[in-house]
């Protein structure tokens, strides 16, 4: 009897959770649990990472020192480059404004720490929420490109659905071609993505780079996603399908950036 009652409670809570999620919110039960366990999560996560870093540094100190110097130089160069890109972005937005167009999304970058990663659900919990202006649908990127979009938000946390999830579909283009063929990208499994083109003769080849199409309210154009590793035709639906290997590797990430 107790077993049935508890299972029924679970199903009820799932409905409650889905209703909140479809509004881009986090349900109170999930929010309360996440708040309650976050101190443990932070301490445990930091301890494991620090231990791993210490052991890594202990065995490869020389290599890390050289790499650190190189990265400092690259950072200085990137800062100059970033400044000039920001200036051009401001000019572009000013021009768009004079033409009556909305500004290009994703100008403001909100850095966030990864608090949890659940591989089975292709989902991340990040430490930035509505208090920092994070909203559902905004793209989440790492140093190598796009990793997913924000699905639901609480005050200081957000759930990120990874590109590898079948529940997420975004517009994508093949960058190496002119004009760039556009298609819809969704998760195939935990390692690859599937990009389907309605044009069965879309010019796409193995090795082509795939990026966001920008045909979205929140996601800007040209954010790198991955590389085409396989192309095949779906004769039944008249589609060409490219299998894409995403650039990101969640295991290597600690921080991400939300573009708002």
């Amino acid at each position, binding site marked *: 009897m107790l*077993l049935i009652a508890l*299972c029924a409670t*679970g199903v009820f*809570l799932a409905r409650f959770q889905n209703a909140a999620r479809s509004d881009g919110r986090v349900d109170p*039960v999930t929010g309360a649990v996440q708040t309650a366990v976050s101190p443990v999560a932070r301490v*445990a996560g930091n301890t494991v*990472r620090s231990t791993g870093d210490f052991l890594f540094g202990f065995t490869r100190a020389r290599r890390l020192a050289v790499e650190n110097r190189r990265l400092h130089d690259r950072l200085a160069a990137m800062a100059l480059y970033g400044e000039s890109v920001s200036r051009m972005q401001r000019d572009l937005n000013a021009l768009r404004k004079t033409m009556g167009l909305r500004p290009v999304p994703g100008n403001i970058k909100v850095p966030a720490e990864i608090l949890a990663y659940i591989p089975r659900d292709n*989902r991340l*919990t990040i430490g930035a929420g509505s208090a920092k202006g994070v909203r559902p649908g905004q793209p989440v990127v790492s140093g190598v490109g796009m990793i997913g979009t924000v699905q639901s938000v609480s005050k200081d946390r957000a759930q990120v659905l990874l590109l590898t999830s079948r529940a997420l579909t975004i517009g994508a283009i093949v960058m190496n071609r002119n004009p760039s063929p556009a298609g819809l990208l969704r998760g195939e499994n935990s390692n690859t993505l599937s990009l389907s083109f309605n044009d069965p003769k879309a010019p796409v080849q193995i090795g082509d780079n795939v990026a966001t199409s920008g045909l979205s309210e929140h996601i800007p154009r040209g954010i790198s996603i991955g590389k085409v590793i396989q192309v095949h035709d779906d004769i039944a639906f008249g589609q060409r399908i490219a299998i894409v290997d995403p650039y990101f590797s969640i295991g290597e990430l600690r921080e991400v950036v939300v573009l708002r």
Partner: protein
Amino acid sequence: MKALAASLVCLWLAAGCQGTVAPQVAIGTVAPDFLLIVVGVLGIFASRPGATLGGFAAGLLHAAVSGANMAGYVVSRTVAGFLAGWYHDLEFETGAVVALITTAFLTLIAGVLHTLIAPPPPAAFVGTLAATIGGAVYNGVLAMPFYLIMRPILRAKG
């Protein structure tokens, strides 16, 4: 009272570690499920209703921490807790090896139930199955030291 407090603390710590520590100590795609380990080991000591409630709490915590759909986690973990509590009624001699077998078995049951309730995409089915089997072994191995730590606290029969 002491057992209840210990169970709550264990579940809280396991939930905190699940999202951050489990991916870091994963072997390939096989990551431990700390909450299921707690359910498996505490189920050896607890009554059937207690273990069922523990399973429910573990499912709720896991789903909330991962932001995943609650139905799959809550139902699979509640059933796992119920089965773990059943063991208590059988009055077997307990030991670290029993903890290993119980936890591995519960992980398989919970994994199969979860797959039936929230099926993965066909392309990921084999990977999910392999991860469940690997997870059962991993959880079972981790359950042994956890059992040895918990036994003096919970005053086991064996």
